[in-house]
C-alpha cells in the first residue's frame, strides 16, 4: 500500500542528559523503499547502530517517528511492539546465536516465541536451513560452525517469521573478504527471491557497492548525504562522503607541498588510462598522477584521480580544458598550499 516500507521522520536520539548528554542522532529523515537494499554507512561512532536499533525500537527515539510498514513504531504498546518486531528482524556482527541450542532449534526459536506448533516450526526451520545452504548442519551446535556459517544460521533465524525487513548491523564485519562476499551474495539472493527489504549497516564502502541500490551517509549523528549509490560515488559532495568514498585515496589534503592540481571524477563513462595518454598525445602535456581511487560499479567506471598539473600556466590551462571537454568526467581545480 506504500512504496516506503520504512519512514524515519525527524528522528533524534540523545543518551543521558545535561552536560553528559550524547546526541547520537539528530534530525534524521530517511525513506526506505519496499524491496530495496538500502545501505547506511558511517565511521565508527557515527550512530549507525543507534539508528538501526531505533528502527525496531530496541532503542526508543528521544523524538521523531519511525514508521514501518505503515505502523508508527513509537506509538505501539509493548505487546503490539513485540508483534511488530516479527516483521522487522535483525542480524548482528557477533551472530548472537543461542549457544546451547542446535542450529535447527535456533531457527525454531522465533517461531516458538509466537506459538507456532513444534513440528510445523521444525519443518519450516529445515527449509530455511536449506535456503541458506546449511541443510546438513541442522543438528550441529553453533560452536561447531565457522563465522560465515553462523551468520547463515542467524539469517535463517531472522527469516523464520517471514519479515518484511531484514536489518543487518555490521553483519559481515567479523568475516574475511571471501566469506563476506558469500554472505552479501546470499542477502542479495534472498532480497530477490523473497522480496524482503534489506537494510545494511556498514563502515565498508565495498559492502555498499556490492549490494546496495541506495545509501545514506551518516556522519556525527546526522545524514550527510543520501541517494543512489552511483550518485554518491560519482559526486560525493560532503567531506564525510569523500572520506568514505576515497578512503586514503585521492584527497588533496594528503599532498603537503604546494601543488597546482586537478581532481578528476569519472562518472561512469570513459576509462581512466586513455585520458592520461591522450592528454600527452593530443595536447602534448604531461601530468602526474598524485593519487587515484577508482572502482567498477555495474560495469561502469567511477572514482577520482588527483592529477598534478604542469608548472607552466599555459600547459596547465590546456590540460584543464581538455579534461573538461571529455564526456562523463568532472574536473575540479585545487590549489593547495602547505
Amino acid at each position, binding site marked *: 500500500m506504500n512504496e516506503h516500507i520504512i519512514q524515519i521522520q525527524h528522528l533524534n536520539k540523545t543518551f543521558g542528559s545535561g552536560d553528559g548528554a550524547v546526541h547520537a542522532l539528530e534530525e534524521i529523515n530517511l525513506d526506505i523503499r519496499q524491496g530495496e537494499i538500502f545501505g547506511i554507512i558511517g565511521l565508527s561512532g557515527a550512530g549507525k547502530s543507534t539508528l538501526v536499533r531505533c528502527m525496531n525500537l*530496541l532503542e526508543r527515539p528521544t523524538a521523531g517517528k519511525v514508521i514501518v510498514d505503515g505502523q508508527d513504531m513509537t506509538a505501539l504498546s509493548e505487546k503490539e511492539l513485540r*508483534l511488530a518486531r516479527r516483521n522487522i528482524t535483525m542480524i548482528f556482527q557477533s551472530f548472537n*546465536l*543461542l*549457544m*546451547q541450542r542446535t542450529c535447527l532449534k535456533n531457527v525454531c526459536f522465533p517461531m516458538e516465541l509466537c506459538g507456532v506448533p513444534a513440528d510445523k516450526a521444525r519443518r519450516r526451520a529445515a527449509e530455511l536451513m536449506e535456503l541458506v545452504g546449511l541443510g546438513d548442519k541442522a543438528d550441529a551446535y553453533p560452536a561447531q560452525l565457522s563465522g560465515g556459517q553462523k551468520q547463515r544460521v542467524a539469517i535463517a533465524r531472522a527469516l523464520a517469521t517471514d519479515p518484511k525487513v531484514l536489518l543487518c548491523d555490521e553483519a559481515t564485519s567479523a568475516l574475511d573478504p571471501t566469506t563476506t562476499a558469500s554472505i552479501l551474495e546470499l542477502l542479495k539472493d534472498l532480497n530477490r527471491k523473497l522480496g524482503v527489504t534489506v537494510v545494511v549497516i556498514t563502515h565498508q564502502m565495498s559492502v555498499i557497492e556490492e549490494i546496495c541500490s541506495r545509501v545514506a551517509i551518516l556522519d556525527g549523528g546526522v545524514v550527510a548525504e543520501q541517494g543512489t549509490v552511483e550518485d554518491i560515488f560519482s559526486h560525493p559532495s560532503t567531506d564525510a562522503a569523500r572520506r568514505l568514498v576515497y578512503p586514503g585515496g585521492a584527497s588533496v589534503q594528503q599532498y603537503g607541498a604546494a601543488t597546482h592540481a586537478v581532481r578528476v571524477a569519472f562518472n561512469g563513462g570513459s576509462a581512466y588510462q586513455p585520458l592520461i595518454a591522450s592528454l600527452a598525445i593530443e595536447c602534448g602535456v604531461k601530468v602526474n598522477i598524485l593519487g587515484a581511487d577508482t572502482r567498477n560499479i555495474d560495469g561502469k567506471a567511477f572514482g577520482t584521480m588527483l592529477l598534478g598539473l604542469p608548472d607552466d600556466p599555459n600547459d596547465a590551462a590546456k590540460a584543464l580544458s581538455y579534461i573538461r571537454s571529455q564526456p562523463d568526467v568532472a574536473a575540479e581545480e585545487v590549489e593547495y598550499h602547505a
Partner: protein
Amino acid sequence: MLEIFTAGFWSQYGALLAAGTRDTLIMTLVATVFAYVLGLPLGVALILTQPHGIRPCALLYRVLGWIINVGRSLPFIILMVAIMDFTKLIVGTKIGVLGAIPPLVISAAPFIARMVETSLAEVDAGVVEAAQSMGASTLQIVWKVYLPEAKPSLILGGSISIITILAYTAIAGAIGAGGLGDLAIRYGYQRRVDSMMLVTVIFLIALVQIIQSIFSRVSTRIDKRLK
C-alpha cells in the same frame, strides 16, 4: 585410630554413622531445593532489574540487593539461634533434622541468589538483545534464553551451593540438628572417640568429592559451547 578397620567399631557405631549420613543428606538436599525455590527467582530478579537489565528498576534492584546482603552477613550459627521461634512456627520444632531446614534455607537463599545472578550475567547480552529483537517477552527471555544458556554455569553453581549447605548442616549439628556434624561433636569432641571424629571427617570429605565430581561432569557434558 586403627580400630576403624575393626568389626567391633562398625558394630558399635555403624548404625549411628548410617543414620547420621542419611540425616545429613536429607537436610542438605531438602534445604537446597527450598533455598533454590527462593534464591533462583531472586537471582533472576536481580538480573532483570539491574541498570542494564531488560526490566531496569533501580528501587527493586537496590532493595533486593540490600536484603540479600543482610542475609549473607549473618553467620549461619547466629541466624539459626536468632530465628528459632520462627523455625518452631514453620516446622513445629526447633531441633532435629526438621528444625535445621528453615535456617539452612534462609541462610543459603541469599547466597544462591548471588550465585544465580553471577551465572546469568555470563549470558551474552547480544543474545538477549537478539531475542528482544524477535519480539520475545520478558518471561520468554528468562525461560528460553537466560536459564537454558546459563545452564552449565548454574549447575556448577549448584555444586557450590550444595557443598556450602552441607557445611552448614555440620554447624547445625552442633546445636542438636543431627547428622554427621552432630556425631562429630557428640562422639568425636565430647566423648573423645577419635575414631568417630576421623570417620565423620572422611565421610564429609567423600560426600563433597562425590557431589563436586558429579556436578562438574554433568556441567561439562551438557555444555554445547565446548564441542
